C-alpha cells in the first residue's frame, strides 16, 4: 500500500503539471480534425500523413535533427520564463552566437579540436554577453526586458548581416554568407546517413542539466519561487537583480550555443538570415509557455512541435494538405492552455 501511495505521489508531483498540456493538445487535434472535415479533407488521412511524416523511417531522424535547435531555443526561453521573465531577444543572441562561432571556426589558427571547442564557447559567450546587455538595461536604467530584448534583436541581426555582406563575404556564392567551414572544425555526424550531428549530445546534456538544476538546486528553488510570487522571493531575501542577470546570461548562452551548433553542425557557414528563418526561437517560446517554464514539460513540448513541423512538411509534400494547419494546431494548443487558469484552478 505504501509503495502504491508513493508511486501516486511521485506521479502527481512530476506528471501533474503535464495534465493540462495533454488536455490542450487533445483539444488542438480535435479542432484541426474539424477544420479538415469542414474543407472536405479526411481527418484520418491528415493525421496519418502527419504521423508518418514525423516518425516513419528516415523521417524520425529529420524530427530529431529539427528537435535539437528547437529544444535548445525552448530551454533558452524556459529558464527566464520559470522566474516570470520573458526573453524575446533569443533570435539576436542566436544570430550573434552563430556568427561568432563561424568566425572562430574559419579564422582561429589552432588545432581542429581546439578550434571547434573555442568556436562553441565563443558562440555561448557572445550570446550571453548580448543578453546581459538587456538585463543591465533593466537593472540600471529601468528599461523593461520585454522591450529591450526584442529591440536588441535588430542591431544583432544587422551587424551579422553587415559582416557577411562586406568583410567576411564569400564571393563564390550568390548569398551573403561566410566561406565554408573546413571539415575538421565541424561537429561531426552522430549517425552517418542521417542529419543528426553531435550537437544532439550537447543539447541532450544541456536539457538534463537544466532539469536537474531546476529540481534539485538552491538556485532552481529561488527561480521557481520567484516565478510563483516575486514579492515573496524578494521578501525572503532572493537578490532579484542578480538573479535577472544570471538568468539572462544563461538564456543568452544557450541561444548562442544553438547558433553555434547550427553553423558548425549542419549549415557549415553563417548565411544571413538562415539561422532565424525557421523561427526556432518563436516555436521555443511557445513550447516553454506551454509548460509554464517547467523544463521537462518544455522539452517534451519542443519535441512534439518538432515532430509536428517535420510531419507538416511531409504532409504538404505527399497529400498537399497545407502545413499551415500544423501551425494552426500549435496556436490552438497554446490558446487552450492559456485558459488553464480558469479551467484547471477550479478542480
Amino acid at each position: 500500500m505504501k509503495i502504491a501511495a508513493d508511486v501516486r505521489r511521485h506521479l502527481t508531483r512530476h506528471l501533474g503539471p503535464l495534465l493540462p498540456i495533454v488536455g490542450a493538445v487533445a483539444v488542438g487535434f480535435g479542432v484541426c480534425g474539424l477544420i479538415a472535415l469542414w474543407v472536405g479533407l479526411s481527418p484520418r488521412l491528415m493525421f496519418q500523413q502527419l504521423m508518418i511524416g514525423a516518425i516513419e523511417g528516415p523521417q524520425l531522424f529529420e524530427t530529431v535533427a529539427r528537435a535539437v535547435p528547437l529544444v535548445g531555443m525552448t530551454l533558452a526561453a524556459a529558464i527566464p520564463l520559470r522566474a516570470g521573465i520573458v526573453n524575446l531577444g533569443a533570435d539576436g543572441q542566436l544570430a550573434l552566437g552563430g556568427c561568432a562561432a563561424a568566425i572562430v571556426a574559419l579564422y582561429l589558427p589552432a588545432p581542429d579540436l581546439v578550434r571547434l571547442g573555442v568556436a562553441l564557447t565563443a558562440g555561448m559567450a557572445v550570446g550571453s554577453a548580448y543578453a546581459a546587455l538587456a538585463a543591465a538595461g533593466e537593472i540600471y536604467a529601468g528599461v523593461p526586458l520585454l522591450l529591450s530584448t526584442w529591440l536588441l534583436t535588430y542591431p544583432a541581426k544587422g551587424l551579422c548581416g553587415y559582416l557577411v555582406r562586406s568583410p567576411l563575404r564569400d564571393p563564390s556564392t550568390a548569398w551573403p554568407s561566410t566561406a565554408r567551414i573546413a571539415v575538421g572544425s565541424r561537429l561531426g555526424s552522430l549517425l552517418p546517413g542521417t542529419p543528426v550531428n553531435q550537437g544532439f549530445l550537447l543539447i541532450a546534456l544541456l536539457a538534463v542539466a537544466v532539469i536537474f538544476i531546476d529540481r534539485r538546486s538552491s538556485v532552481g528553488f529561488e527561480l521557481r519561487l520567484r516565478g510563483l510570487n516575486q514579492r515573496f522571493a524578494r521578501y525572503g531575501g532572493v537578490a532579484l537583480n542578480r538573479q535577472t542577470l544570471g538568468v539572462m546570461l544563461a538564456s543568452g548562452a544557450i541561444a548562442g550555443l544553438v547558433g553555434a551548433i547550427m553553423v558548425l553542425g549542419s549549415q557549415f557557414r553563417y548565411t544571413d538570415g538562415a539561422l532565424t528563418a525557421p523561427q526556432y526561437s518563436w516555436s521555443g517560446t511557445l513550447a516553454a509557455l506551454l509548460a509554464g517554464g517547467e523544463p521537462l514539460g518544455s522539452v517534451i513540448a519542443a519535441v512534439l512541435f518538432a515532430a509536428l513541423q517535420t510531419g507538416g512538411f511531409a504532409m504538404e509534400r505527399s497529400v498537399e494538405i497545407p502545413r499551415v494547419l500544423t501551425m494552426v494546431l500549435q496556436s490552438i494548443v497554446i490558446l487552450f492552455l492559456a485558459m488553464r487558469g480558469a479551467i484547471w484552478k477550479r478542480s
Partner: protein
Amino acid sequence: MAYLEMIDIVKRYPGVLANDHVDLAVERGEIHAVMGENGAGKSTLMSILYGLQSPDEGYIRFKGSTLLLQSPLDAIAHGIGMVHQAFKLFESLSVWENVVYRREPRRGIFVDGARARAQVAELARRHGLPIDPEARVSTLPVGVRQRLEILKALYRDAQVLILDEPTAVLTPAEVATLFKVMRSLAAAGCTLLLVTHKLNEVMAVSDRITVLRNGRVAERLVTADTHVDAIVRAMTGHHVTLRLPKQPREPGAVQLEAKDLRVEQHGRRVVDDVSLSVRGGEIVGIAGVAGNGQSELIEALMGLTPVVQGSVLVAGRDVTHASVAAHRARGLSYIAEDRARTATAASASATDNLAMGFHRTAPLARKGLLQPQAMRAWASSLIERFDIKIASPETAVGTLSGGNLQKIVTARELAHNAPVLIAEQPTRGVDVGAIAFIHGELLAERERGRGILLVSAELSELLALADRILVMYQGRIVAEFARADADEATLGLYMAGGARA
C-alpha cells in the same frame, strides 16, 4: 414576529456549507451584532441580506412581508443599506455629488445642484453627522468618508443599515464618534447590523448578538447579560485564554537601531526622521492608524525600500543600504503584514514555503543541492510544532485558512532564530484560537531574549504584549510610552495627531 427576519438560510459553495440553516431575528431600532471568526458565514449572511447573493434555501421577511432580492438595487429599494469595509466613493467628486449620485433631484435634464446641496445638508444635520457637502472626497479623512457612506444609505431611505467591520480603519476617537452616530440612528428608529470580530466594540455598542460558527448559529446573546468570555466560547466552541501572563524582564543589549530614518515616495516624506531601538528580550510596539508610514518604516528596516537618509543598525552593524538577504543574515526575521501576497507563495507547497531562507544552507541544502528528505522533515516538524492544519507538507498553502497560513509564516520566521523579529500585524484577520497561539509564541520568544518590533492596528494587542509603545502619525514618531503609562485613550489621542506639542 420580528421586524426583520432571515429564516432558515442555506448557502452552499463548492465544498463549503457557508450558511447552514441560519435564523436571524432583529427588532426595529436595535443595534444587532453579527459575530464569528473568519469563515463562520457572517459575510455570506450579510451579502444575502443585501441582495449580493441569493440563498439556496430560506427567505427574508421584512416588516411582515417576504422579500425577494435579486440585487443590491432591490435591497436599497426596500430600505436596506450597507456600508462596506472598502468604501465605494468617487474621490474626485464632492460630498453632495457622491450622496445624490443616480438619485439626483432634477430640473429638466439638469441636476438641481442647489436643491441637492440643501437636501444633503439637512439630512446630515438631522442625523447628527457633521460634514461639509461641498468638500472633495479626496481631501476627507477616513472617519468622515465613512460618515459619507452612512449618509448615502440614509439618503436612499435606509431603515436597515449593515455595517461591515466599520471600525477597522478608524482611530479610537473616530470609533467613539461612530458609536454615537449609531446610537442616535437607532434611537431614531433605524435598525443597525454590525458585522465585526472585535469583542470590546460589541460590548460597547450592541443590544443583542448573534454568534455564528461553521455556518450555524452558535449562540444568541443579550449584550447586557453576557460577558466577553461567553462570546469567545461561542465563537470558538472552546475556552480560550486571551489574557496571557507576562513576566517582568530586564531587556538586554540593543539589537536593532534606526537613526533619523527617512523614506520618500513621490517626493513626500512617508517616513520622517524616525529613530528607534529594540533591545533583546523586549517587545516594542508601534501604534498608529494604517497608512501613517508604518509599512514604509518596516520596509526600510528590512532593506525592501531605499533609505534617503539616516541609518539602520542590526547588532551594531550598519545595514542601511544592504540587500534583504544581508539584513536577514545580520539578524532580522520578519512576519510581513500581507501573508498571502508577500509572506507566502500561494501555489507553492508548505515544504517550499517553509524552506525559503533555509534553502541555501545545511541541513536543507548541501553544496548548492536541495535535500528533499531534509526539506520534508523540516516542514513536518514545523507543521507539528505549530499545530498547522494542513493535509500534507506537499499541499499548496493557498488552500489554508488565514490562521493556518499565518502560522506557516510565523513558524518560518521564528525558526530563523534571529536576534530580532519584526512582526507586522501578526494576528490581523485570524481566528481567536490562532491569535492566542501567536501571542503566546511572541511572549515566549521575548522570554528567550529575542527583541521584537510589533506593528499593530489593534491597541488591545499592543497593550497586552508590548513593553514600550511608540505612536506613529504622518510618518513621524509622535509619542513614546512605557507600557505602564499607556492607555487606549492617550494612545488614541496621539494616533489622531491630536496631542502634538
